[in-house]
């Protein structure tokens, strides 16, 4: 039962139509063409990885000593390596490794980092202080040094590789997210959630994390580029994936170095692939950061 004199039915017309994903994407492409190009390359890379079985002309592991060290030709578009394996196919399959390891590490790293950062900001006080100092210790090691150390300790199976790459990313992400989370914590809607008796976990996951989406996405995209580079570096140093798996960094090792002058295509094309991938992620990430920046205020 309501007293109608007091209740004034107040309909504000809803905005014309909600901005759907398509609008957002089109807008992004129009305003930031460089970022769109970066995004397009990323999408291309993902497609290549997913459709590898269909588009790769050869089995990347197929050895063919008859065709070894062959320069680019009609049969082998990018030439062959010291074992006669088709470079193009190895690059195509290498994208899978890059994406699995790269995406996996970056995604897990930034997500765990975000949760840690938000939780640290939420609990505040001594907990926050201790966690921060811990993070500081990890951050003081450059990405690759820490990853190297962890691989050396854990051994270099693929899962261990992902863990080793994730570890240095967590504290970096936690630090950045924490500062956004600190201002969210002061918001009345967080107070309202506390006053409603919600658990800490619920407040962190449901009320704070969704509101740090902007810095989270930015960290994620920047880590993606770094993760690919990291994986390539580790593989190059022999601490990443092992032969005969197709991985770009691995392709730069050993015979590629030995035959650098006589068969430059062995190193050139994987190198290009790495550069292009990292460049694309960085372009996209930069534009994303610019696009999200003003919205960082409104969350």
């Amino acid at each position, binding site marked *: 039962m309501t007293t109608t004199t*007091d209740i004034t039915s107040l309909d504000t*017309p809803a905005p014309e139509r909600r901005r759907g994903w398509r609008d957002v994407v089109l807008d992004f492409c129009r305003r930031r063409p460089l970022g769109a190009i970066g995004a397009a390359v990323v999408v291309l890379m993902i497609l290549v990885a997913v459709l590898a079985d269909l588009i790769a002309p050869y089995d990347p592991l197929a050895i063919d000593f008859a065709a070894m060290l062959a320069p680019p030709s009609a049969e082998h578009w990018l030439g062959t390596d010291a074992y006669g394996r088709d470079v193009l196919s190895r690059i195509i399959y290498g994208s899978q490794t890059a994406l699995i390891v790269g995406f996996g590490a970056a995604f897990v790293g930034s997500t765990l980092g975000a949760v840690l950062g938000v939780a640290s900001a939420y609990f505040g006080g001594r907990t926050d202080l201790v966690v921060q100092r811990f993070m500081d210790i990890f951050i003081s090691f450059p990405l690759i040094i820490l990853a190297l150390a962890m691989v050396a300790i854990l051994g270099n199976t693929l899962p261990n590789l992902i863990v080793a790459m994730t570890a240095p990313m967590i504290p970096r992400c936690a630090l950045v997210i924490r500062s956004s989370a600190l201002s969210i914590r002061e918001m009345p809607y967080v107070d309202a959630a506390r006053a409603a008796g919600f658990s800490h976990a619920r407040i962190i996951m449901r009320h704070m994390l969704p509101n740090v989406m902007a810095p989270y996405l930015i960290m994620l995209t920047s880590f993606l580029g770094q993760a690919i580079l990291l994986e390539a570096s580790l593989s190059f140093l022999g601490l990443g994936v092992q032969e005969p798996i197709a991985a770009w960094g691995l392709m730069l090792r050993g015979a590629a170095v030995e035959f650098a002058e006589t068969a430059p295509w062995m190193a050139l094309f994987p190198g290009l692939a790495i550069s292009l991938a990292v460049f694309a992620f960085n372009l996209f990430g930069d534009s994303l950061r610019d696009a999200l920046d003003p919205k960082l205020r409104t969350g």
Partner: protein
Amino acid sequence: MSKTTPPLLEVRDLRTEFSTAGGIVRAVDGVSWDVHAGETVALVGESGCGKSVSALSIMGLVAQPAGRITGGRILFKDRDLLALSEEEMRRVRGREIAMVFQEPMTSLNPVLTVGRQITEACEIHLGYSEAQARDRAIEVLGLVGIPDAVRRLRQYPHQFSGGMRQRLMIAIALSCSPDLILADEPTTALDVTIQAQILDLMKDLSRQVGAATLIITHNLGVVARYADRVNVMYAGRIVERGTAREIYANPRHPYTLGLLRSVPRLDEPKRERLAPIQGQPPDLTRLPRGCAFAPRCAYAIDRCRQEAPTLQSVGGTHLSACWVADTLDGRAAAGERGTHREVVGE
């Protein structure tokens, strides 16, 4: 109360718009009013009615390129301010027309000493030497009631409280003896007791130095206490104008009437329920045809929805932009509020 001398400031048919994502917002939509030397005029209205934008337009501080003054004239001492170049306008700002803003926290430069902020204006506008400007600064700090002026000159804004900072803003405004002071919600951010101090100060000072004041606010009480004449704004237009007494005793626009009725008063017996204005503040990108207030108006007739009313006289200097102004009896509505009682607190 007609003035035979020309007004100090005369705004004629001012139009200011903003381009926003949602469309063009006509923040000020054909507004005309004036201020005579020495008087206090109020622009009253709620958020979005265009009162602040009017003041910014006068000062030439409308944020470009989104904001544009698209029409009208602003005659100040016989010059059209809109026709002045930026250079010439700069000489007017601070020297002849001074502005006091709402937020004393952000309107003062945190990295300059207070003294510097006052003397800067004097040096630039009046060509004072350092020593002369300093003397003037001390004088003006005394005028606004800040003790120990010599020491205070060397301090920074963060060392002052909110009320003191607002006094500083007033001091800066007065330092070059302007003819007109624009005060945009000067006390909204302050506590009630400090508000009373500051407003009393502004009134005394403007009388002392002979400056006219344009006070912009949404607080009906403040207007009643300090304004000589009042302009009520809604959706970028002036809907009612008159002396303070006329407007409050006999409101002749449904919006003014609604506002006065919906505000609880300390000096009246407690009413059962407040009488709010129905509906929502207007969406400035989608104003209806006809009177902007019609959707919320209890007295609206068909004509109101077809044709936008213009300001017409409803008795001497009292004007209202309403087709039913004649039938609206503000006195009866005022009488509903109960007989005048002894004011509380004495």
